């Protein structure tokens, strides 16, 4: 399988800059997700790689070969679109066979390949059905089989699950990952769904306003966000206004309480900054009868059941509301109005050098 390199990609649509110098390399057999909000340029990047858009500047290389000026139908890439991309006049099998017919492969070879791929995506029994006779999830499986039939050097997926139901989405993303690992195909996956990106990717490239904010493994991006944007876009994060006490030791102070951050700080002692803490790193405990406890004091103002965990919304007393997760089995004790003390898991807080305290200390919005 081939490597894929996006080098200095710029794309402008009139006065709008969709891509502003995108550099990204995919190793052979790697699955990298381009993750970002709508309009961040991720789909534009994918379409440039596929050959459907022309970059204003920059290059695209596959296995060291420059394909920037190669037409889309000569790029040897497989692509799965958001939805509705199956040819409606062809059956599932004929859709999968399409690329092989175009390549004038022998009939027997085509039939064998189609059967193999329909088996791979678990739809051998749907070979004779037309797209309108298939569910959304089945259509996307067939689209995946069709893209893989031509044995592309690179597989491109443009939000392939966005039009599907939640349960189908989870099943299919796992299926996509299984097939990708089985075939070892280099894959660029575009999504705005952070859970999707984190769950199936070797690496995640977070984009904002046409630029890469961070590229790293799902754990790196989640645990060590490089920018405030990444911290907020990937998962939920609380921001606590703190003052640096001992930069070398990574010690900060919040309301007179010393907190240990994940690493040494590049800020000077006394500087005010913000500490980023994930909800699962904020540990709530019941405050004593007098309302005091060892931790940041607050009062539960709302709860959200999320399945295994329940998210508590805790008012710190000055209008700041933070999110803290507790195991759902133990959540009954934290009803709205309960006084709690929040402690931060050692080393779980993170200070970003670029994240000066400019705004109010409200760190996570209470859902309406």
């Amino acid at each position, binding site marked *: 399988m081939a490597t894929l390199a996006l080098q200095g990609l710029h794309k402008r649509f009139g006065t709008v800059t969709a891509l502003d110098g995108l550099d990204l390399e995919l190793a052979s057999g790697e699955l990298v997700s381009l993750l970002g909000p709508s309009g961040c340029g991720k789909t534009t990047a994918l379409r440039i790689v596929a050959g459907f858009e022309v970059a204003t500047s920059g290059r695209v290389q596959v296995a060291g070969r420059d394909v920037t000026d190669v037409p889309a139908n000569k790029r040897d890439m497989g*692509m799965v679109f958001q939805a509705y991309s199956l040819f409606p006049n062809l059956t599932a099998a004929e859709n999968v066979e399409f690329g092989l017919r*175009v390549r004038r492969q022998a009939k027997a070879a085509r039939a064998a390949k189609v059967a193999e791929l329909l088996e791979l995506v678990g739809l051998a029994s749907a070979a004779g059905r*037309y797209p309108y006779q298939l569910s959304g999830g089945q259509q996307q499986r067939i689209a995946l089989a069709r893209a893989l039939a031509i044995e592309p050097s690179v597989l491109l997926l443009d939000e392939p699950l966005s039009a599907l139901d939640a349960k189908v989405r989870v099943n299919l993303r796992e299926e996509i990952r299984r097939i990708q690992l089985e075939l070892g195909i280099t894959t660029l996956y575009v999504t705005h769904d952070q859970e999707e990106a984190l769950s199936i990717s070797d690496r995640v490239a977070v984009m904002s306003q046409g630029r890469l904010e961070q590229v790293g493994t799902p754990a790196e991006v989640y645990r060590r966000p490089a920018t405030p944007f990444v911290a907020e876009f990937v998962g939920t994060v609380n921001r606590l206004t703190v003052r640096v006490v001992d930069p070398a030791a990574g010690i900060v102070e919040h309301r007179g309480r010393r907190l240990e951050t994940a690493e040494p700080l590049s800020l000077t002692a006394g500087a005010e900054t913000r500490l980023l803490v994930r909800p699962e790193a904020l540990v709530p405990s019941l405050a004593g009868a007098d309302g005091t406890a060892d931790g940041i004091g607050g009062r539960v103002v709302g709860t959200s059941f999320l399945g295994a965990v329940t998210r508590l919304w805790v008012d710190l007393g000055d209008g700041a509301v933070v999110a803290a997760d507790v195991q759902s089995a133990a959540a009954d004790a934290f009803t709205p109005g309960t006084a709690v003390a929040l402690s931060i898991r050692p080393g779980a807080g993170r200070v970003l050098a670029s994240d000066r305290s400019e705004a109010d200390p409200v760190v996570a919005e209470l859902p309406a």
Partner: protein
Amino acid sequence: MTALTDAPVVVDEAVGTRRPRPRRRSLAWLGAVPFLAYAFLFLVLPGVSVIVSAFQNTNGSFTTQWVRDLFQGQFLSANVNSLELAALSAITGGVVGFLAAYAVVTLGRPRWLRSFVTTFSAVAANFAGVPLAFAFVATIGSEGAMTKLLENALGVNISSFNLVSVTGLVVVYTYFQIPLMVLVVAPALDGLRREWREAAANLGASATQYWLRVGLPVLAPSVIGAMLLLFASGFAAYATAVALTSGLVNLVATLIGNYLSGNVIAQPQMGQALGLDMLVVLFVAVGLYLLLQRRASKWVR
């Protein structure tokens, strides 16, 4: 205890139990009553009357004479002329209209172009009869402005072109067939998804391969269906043909007019037989159109 029912079920918020909600009969169908009554009185009843009368003798007894006459002499000739006129104007208008609609739909810019073309088409598709005939006579008739201009400016003589002929009628009918095609086929072109073209390219297909294997097969039912409508329109058009040819070109529509207005020997049954002839052609054309539309809508839903 909850009874099984196929009626919609709602949750009673007060007690949390389920109770069947009575079905409400919609009165929306009342809005269609005037139209249905009108269609029954002036389409269905006359249609039945035409069919019955076409098989009745002057004394009211059953006969197939009138229908058999349709395949002889001037009636056969009228059928041939009408079919030729309908087919040629449908094909010409269909092809030109399809290309125009394709250009407008795919270009997308300037934004006003689509609405302009649609509005113009809606008007032009209904421009027929005496005004249309006059426009063509005044433009490309033997003394028409364009005829003179071409002759004087370029030395091209088109005065020998006879508007009062099947070919002349094809040219004139094309004027309303093109916009009719634009109106009918534009929605089908809208349904042609960009993803299909891109997916085909991604799989290695050239533009030609895409059109041959996907684009045209998907559009075919709609395009052929639209051309069948044009065919029906061309076959049944009356006012323009009469205004332009004064009945000199033998067509089914003009013959019906002649028989019903008493311009020829009073044989209303022959007129009814010709009416039946036209009904059959229109039913076949519209029936095929509906079949093709069903197939097209199935693919693109």
